[in-house]
Structure formats: structure tokens, C-alpha cells
């Protein structure tokens, strides 16, 4: 793990789980797989704290454990999974667009809690939805269950591995840690539950149980009145499926930008048809015949068969090679080149970065070298039609920032510099890696700056929160306008200005984090796809 990744993980863990978990998590990421005692000794934390932190991390799928020889259990942190925490808002928003508010809340609960049983999720989501509904209306459990089942069917949520129920025939000592298994076919199997009920509002008075002081609630949470029907069956959000969806979205929007709406719809249809047949890491989808595509186009899209064929031919001939023709049967067999598409997207990202950092002339040189693969300095000046001095300057700038690299071709065996060709080339994989590393650094800087801004104005923020609380309570008890005015004036105008500026800055920093994460997703997908093919 690079230093930038570790720093970013540390910031994310600290923001979401506190300092203790951050200390343990970062230690595990740095040092790899370790047993419990060693972690406690190395971090200086008490054994109890380490245990609690590990429980939290395991619950959120950030740490896995393995039983080694002699019964020693070792814990390993998943750095890449920690970095996924940046993407939680995007996952939740996607669920909202696909399955509306119910789906959004289900995914949110699963992400916030790591793993949950289906009944727990349904109950919580129903309660939350009921809160937002009008008085008197409640959310039925069955509706939430239906959405949950749909999410499971489309693989957006999956079951966690569980302890296999074995016959207790061996009298030996129980293993130090349970071995969790899961089989492919069980992963999306929804248990047959009959969840009957409605969501409850927090302030409903028909429940005396709610009136009980919370301190009396038993410490051991297993004292429920009814046994949980699906005890032990935990669900988690399936991040890979979301990534597949994001990738499809990126490809469709790229086609829409390059060509037009109709071609993007065709590509979207093709991707939708291959969702189930193609594994997400395949370099290209299964071949689809033109007839099938015609039948699967969305209803209301009045595109005739001939027009569809023309579009497909156009897409297949495009130099970007998103769509390829793999045969002629069935009116023409077409595939989507996923790997090539990701490569094009990564290259476009690189080009855009060069353009925004160094100018459009530099971008022209960059694209030129990309196209021609290897070019000498003189050739670059000639082809790009840029004066020699400027071209040299730009080439060296890009070289020093590692967007380009030099390839030496010696003429003589002693590699004398005056008798060696130096060719400029762009290695997309290494440039993508370099850019990814920079993205991690950027987000770490953004988070640090946001924390700094918030800390600077902590006093002011607390004051404004107190004033708001006072205002709210006074409005609830029905105060006059004059009194409210007086309270509001507790915050002076310059302070209000300061608060406004702070809010604007924090919003900007947050929005930047989300956008940098989109770039990270593209680059990571491309790198992963390339590594799988090697």
C-alpha cells in the first residue's frame, strides 16, 4: 500500500469510526496480517480496545480473519475496501435512481451497518419511511420486503458467508474461529419470511414499550420477545454489482457524447442484455445478434430494423472500438469491447488532465504521441506544427510529471548519448497509475483542509447550533416574533458572513471529493481490467 493510500485510509477511518479504530486499522494496513496480541502490543492500545475495534472493522467487512496453524487467528485489513467508503453517497444515490426511496434506505442501512439480517433491515427502513410520511400513514413491511427481494434478484445485495451448520458429533474443542463459507447459488437466495407489520413512528403513544426508559433495556440484545426468523442470515451490499452499473453508465454516456442519443440507447440495451450472461471482469460481452437487440429495445423507441443495422455498423466502424462485430449470423453478431472501452475512458481522462494542467498545445502533443506510439523530439516538433522551443519545453514538462516516458534505442553498444535515439512514448498503464496516486493524494488533502476549516470555526459552529436549538424549542412553545428576532440577533452579521463562507467552502470541498472519486473509479477499473488480462 502506498503512503498516499494509507494516509487516505487513516483519514476515512478516523472520520467514520473514531481514533481507536483508526489506530488499529492503519496499523493492520501497514503491517499486514497479525494476531491479536501483537496488534495490542505494537499499537499500545489495551486489549479490550483492540477487540472492540476489530469487532467494528469485521462487522463492516474491512478486516477479515484467518485461522493459522496452532490455532492462532490472524487479522488482515482490506485497504481497497476502506477506500470504497468514499463512494457510499454514490451507491446510495444509484439505489435511489433505480429503486426509489425504499431502495435508497435499504442500501443506506446496509452500508452504515456493514451486515444486517433481512428482518432488521425491513423493520428499520419501514420505521424511517413512516417518519417521513404524513400523519396517520404507515409503511407496510411487505412493500419494503418486495424492494429487498428485487435488490437481491438483481444482485445489488448479497448474502454474507456464514457458519455451516454441522452435526456436533466431534467432541473435540471448538475451533478458535468459525470458518465462514458461502456457495455461489446461495448468495442471492432470499429466505422465506413472512414479515407482517407496519412501520412505527418514534413518538407513537400506542406503545408502552416505547415509554420504558431506555436504560432499562437489557444489555444483552438477544432478549427479544419473538425469535428472529432469519437469525444468522446476514446481508451486505454487493459493491461489485454497483461498480458494474457505474461502468455501464460511463460507457453509455461516452457513446452519447460521441454520437447521439439513439446509439447510446442501443448500447444501453446491449449492456442490459449482457448483465446476467457476462461476468463483470470479462474483456467483452457475449455476442448479441442484431435481431435480439431489435426485440429488446425499449418499448416506444420507434427505430426500424434497417436504421438499427445502420447504427450498429456505424458503432462497429468507430475508431474508438466500443462495439465490435464478431460474426454475420442472425443479422450480425455484435459485442461490446469492455476492456477497450475502459481503456478509451482512461485515455480520455489522461488527455483531459494534460489539457487542463498544461494547455491545449501540450494536449495536442500528448494526443500525437499517443497516436504514433513512439516519436523523436524532432518529429514531434514537425508533426505537431509547434515551434521547436515551445515543443521542447512542453515535452520536458510532461516528462518531468511522468505523463510521458523516454525509450532509449542505442545505435552503438556503448550507449553513448550522442549516438542514441531517444523516443517519447506514453505508457497508458503507468500514466494511469501515476494519476491514480495523485487522486488519492488530492482527496487526502481535501479532507484535511475540510477538517481544518471546520476546526477553525468550531466555536462559531457550536454557537450557531445552540441558537438554532433555542429557536426551535421556542417556536415549539409558541413564542412571539419579537423574541425570535432577539434570539436570532445573537449571531451578529459578520459572524453570519463567516458561517456562510464556511458552509460554501465545506460544500465545495465535499463536492470535489465526490468528483475526484469518479475519476478514481474509472482509473481503478481500467487498471484492474488490464491486470486481469495479463
Amino acid at each position: 500500500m502506498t503512503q498516499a493510500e494509507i494516509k487516505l485510509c487513516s483519514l476515512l477511518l478516523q472520520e467514520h469510526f473514531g481514533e481507536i479504530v483508526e489506530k488499529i486499522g492503519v496499523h493492520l494496513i501497514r503491517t499486514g496480517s497479525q494476531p491479536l496480541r501483537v496488534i495490542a502490543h505494537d499499537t499500545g492500545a489495551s486489549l479490550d480496545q483492540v477487540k472492540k475495534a476489530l469487532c467494528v472493522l469485521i462487522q463492516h467487512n474491512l478486516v477479515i480473519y484467518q485461522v493459522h496453524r496452532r490455532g492462532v487467528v490472524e487479522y488482515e485489513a482490506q485497504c481497497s475496501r476502506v477506500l470504497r467508503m468514499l463512494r457510499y453517497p454514490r451507491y446510495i444515490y444509484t439505489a435511489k435512481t433505480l429503486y426509489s426511496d425504499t431502495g435508497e434506505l435499504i442500501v443506506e442501512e446496509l452500508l452504515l451497518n456493514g451486515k444486517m439480517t433481512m428482518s432488521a433491515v425491513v423493520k428499520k427502513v419501514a420505521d424511517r419511511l413512516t417518519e417521513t410520511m404524513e400523519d396517520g400513514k404507515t409503511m407496510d413491511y411487505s412493500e419494503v420486503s418486495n424492494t429487498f427481494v428485487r435488490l437481491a434478484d438483481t444482485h445489488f445485495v448479497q448474502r454474507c458467508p456464514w457458519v455451516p451448520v454441522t452435526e456436533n458429533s466431534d467432541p473435540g474443542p471448538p475451533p478458535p474461529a468459525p470458518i465462514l463459507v458461502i456457495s455461489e447459488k446461495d448468495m442471492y437466495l432470499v429466505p422465506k419470511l413472512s414479515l407482517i407489520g407496519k412501520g412505527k413512528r418514534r413518538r407513537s403513544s400506542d406503545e408502552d414499550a416505547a415509554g420504558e426508559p431506555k436504560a432499562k433495556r437489557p444489555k444483552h440484545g438477544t432478549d427479544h420477545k419473538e425469535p428472529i426468523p432469519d437469525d444468522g442470515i446476514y446481508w451486505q451490499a454487493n459493491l461489485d454489482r454497483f461498480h458494474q452499473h457505474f461502468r455501464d453508465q460511463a460507457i453509455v454516456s461516452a457513446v452519447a457524447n460521441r454520437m447521439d442519443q439513439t446509439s447510446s440507447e442501443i448500447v444501453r440495451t446491449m449492456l442490459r442484455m449482457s448483465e446476467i450472461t457476462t461476468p463483470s471482469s470479462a474483456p467483452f460481452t457475449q455476442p448479441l445478434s442484431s435481431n435480439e437487440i431489435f426485440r429488446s429495445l425499449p418499448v416506444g423507441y420507434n427505430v426500424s430494423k434497417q436504421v438499427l443495422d445502420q447504427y450498429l455498423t456505424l458503432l462497429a466502424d468507430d475508431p474508438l472500438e466500443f462495439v465490435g462485430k464478431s460474426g454475420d449470423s442472425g443479422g450480425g453478431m455484435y459485442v461490446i469491447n469492455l476492456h477497450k472501452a475502459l481503456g478509451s475512458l482512461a485515455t480520455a481522462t489522461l488527455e483531459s488532465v494534460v489539457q487542463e494542467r498544461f494547455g491545449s498545445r501540450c494536449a495536442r502533443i500528448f494526443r500525437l504521441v499517443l497516436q504514433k506510439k513512439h516519436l523523436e523530439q524532432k518529429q514531434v516538433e514537425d508533426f505537431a506544427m509547434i515551434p521547436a522551443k515551445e515543443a521542447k519545453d512542453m515535452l520536458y514538462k510532461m516528462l518531468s510529471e511522468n505523463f510521458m516516458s523516454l525509450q532509449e534505442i542505442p545505435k552503438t553498444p556503448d550507449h553513448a548519448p550522442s549516438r542514441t535515439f531517444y523516443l517519447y512514448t506514453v505508457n497508458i498503464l503507468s500514466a494511469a497509475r501515476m494519476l491514480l496516486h495523485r487522486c488519492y493524494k488530492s482527496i487526502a488533502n481535501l479532507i484535511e483542509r475540510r477538517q481544518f476549516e471546520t476546526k477553525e470555526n468550531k466555536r462559531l459552529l457550536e454557537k450557531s447550533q445552540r441558537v438554532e436549538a433555542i429557536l426551535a424549542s421556542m417556536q415549539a412553545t409558541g413564542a412571539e416574533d419579537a423574541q425570535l428576532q432577539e434570539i436570532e440577533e445573537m449571531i451578529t452579521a459578520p459572524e453570519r458572513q463567516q458561517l456562510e463562507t464556511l458552509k460554501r467552502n465545506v460544500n465545495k470541498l465535499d463536492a470535489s471529493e465526490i468528483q475526484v472519486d469518479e475519476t478514481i473509479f474509472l482509473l481503478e477499473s481500467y487498471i484492474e481490467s488490464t491486470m486481469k488480462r495479463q
Partner: protein
Amino acid sequence: MAGNKGRGRAAYTFNIEAVGFGRGEKLPDVVLKPPPLFPDTDYKPVPLKAGEGEEYMLALKQELRETMKRMPYYLETPEEKPDIERYSKRYMKVYKEEWIPDWRRLPREMMPRKKYKTGPKPQKAKTTGKGASLTNTADVLKKIEELEKRGDGEKSDEENEEKEGSKEKSKEGDDDEDDDAAEQEEYDEEEQEEENDYINSYFEDGDDFGADSDDNMDEATY
């Protein structure tokens, strides 16, 4: 070495013209300090994407941040005890739900073993400790005796030693609750025997005193 034309004469091994400096021209000064922390950029960054989706995600992000702080998974750092206990602190405590992980899914060493813990949360520790050990229905009487001895207020090395000893034993494999408790009890009695001159079994059953308080009790044992 080939290429060393004139002895001691400065000669470039490559064509200096190619790099952009004319022959005999003064080369630029060597930079002797680190680059500036915030260098000026020639090109200002492009404005951020702004749309309905982006705004919604922004609001979600900020909400999630706040929600996570209130979840039971957010472990607060234990503060050192302030010199004066502030009155307002009692009323500013945010109520957090307890979260109990599913122990069946976790390695056994994760379970808290708080039989003799005398940390900042005495009540919870004792109940968990009692709860775990009381599942061992055989030796309730012995347990009560144990608790009374604990009420002597001796948080000394012996107890820590016992804790360590018991932990080590439990790590060695056979980790039956019974064996554990029995071993600790035996160890306990042996150790505690030295503390006072009274026969341990002299104590009556009903008097479960001092088990809940953690203070250093100076009262003598009976």
C-alpha cells in the same frame, strides 16, 4: 573510456543543441531550495459539476458523516478524568445504542473476558462477567464467595496475575467455560488465603456485599 576526448576539458557527451541550449551559452542556475509549497498555476481549474444528482450526493455525504458519529460503531476515545466533574457533562452525553456483535461469526478470542476488570465501566463489566460465568450453573455458591473476596477492594497484582494466567490458559486450546472458571477459582482461593486470617468458607451465603462498588473499601472482612 571512449568518448573522453580532451583530458580535463569539459565536454558534453550528448548534443547540447538538442536540449535547447546554444553552445557556450550560460546554463541556468542550479536551484538550491525546495519548490514552493503552493506554486502558481497557469491554468485555473474547471468549475465543479453541478446538477441535481451532485447536489443530492453532497447532502447525502454530509448527512452520512453526521450519522456515522452517532452510530454505536463510532468508538469514542476515553477522556482522562477532568479535575472537576462538570455538571453539564451529564446532560450533554449523547445516547448511543448498544451494539452486540454476533459472537458466532467472530473468533472466540474476541469475546470480552471481564471477570476481574476494574476499569472505567465497573457496572457493565461486572454484569458481563457475571453473566458469562453464571451460565455455569454448577457453582453458584463459589461464585458468590469469589465476589465477596473481590469486594475486599484488592486490585493488586494478584488479580492482574490471575487475569493474565487465565487468559494464557484459555489461549492454549481447551477453552471450556467450566475449566476456566474452576481453574480461576482454585487459583483465587490459594492466592486469597494469604490475605486474611479468616477461613474463607466462614462467610454466610446471603451477604453479597460490596460486589457492585469498585471503590477501595477499607472495611475489614468478616
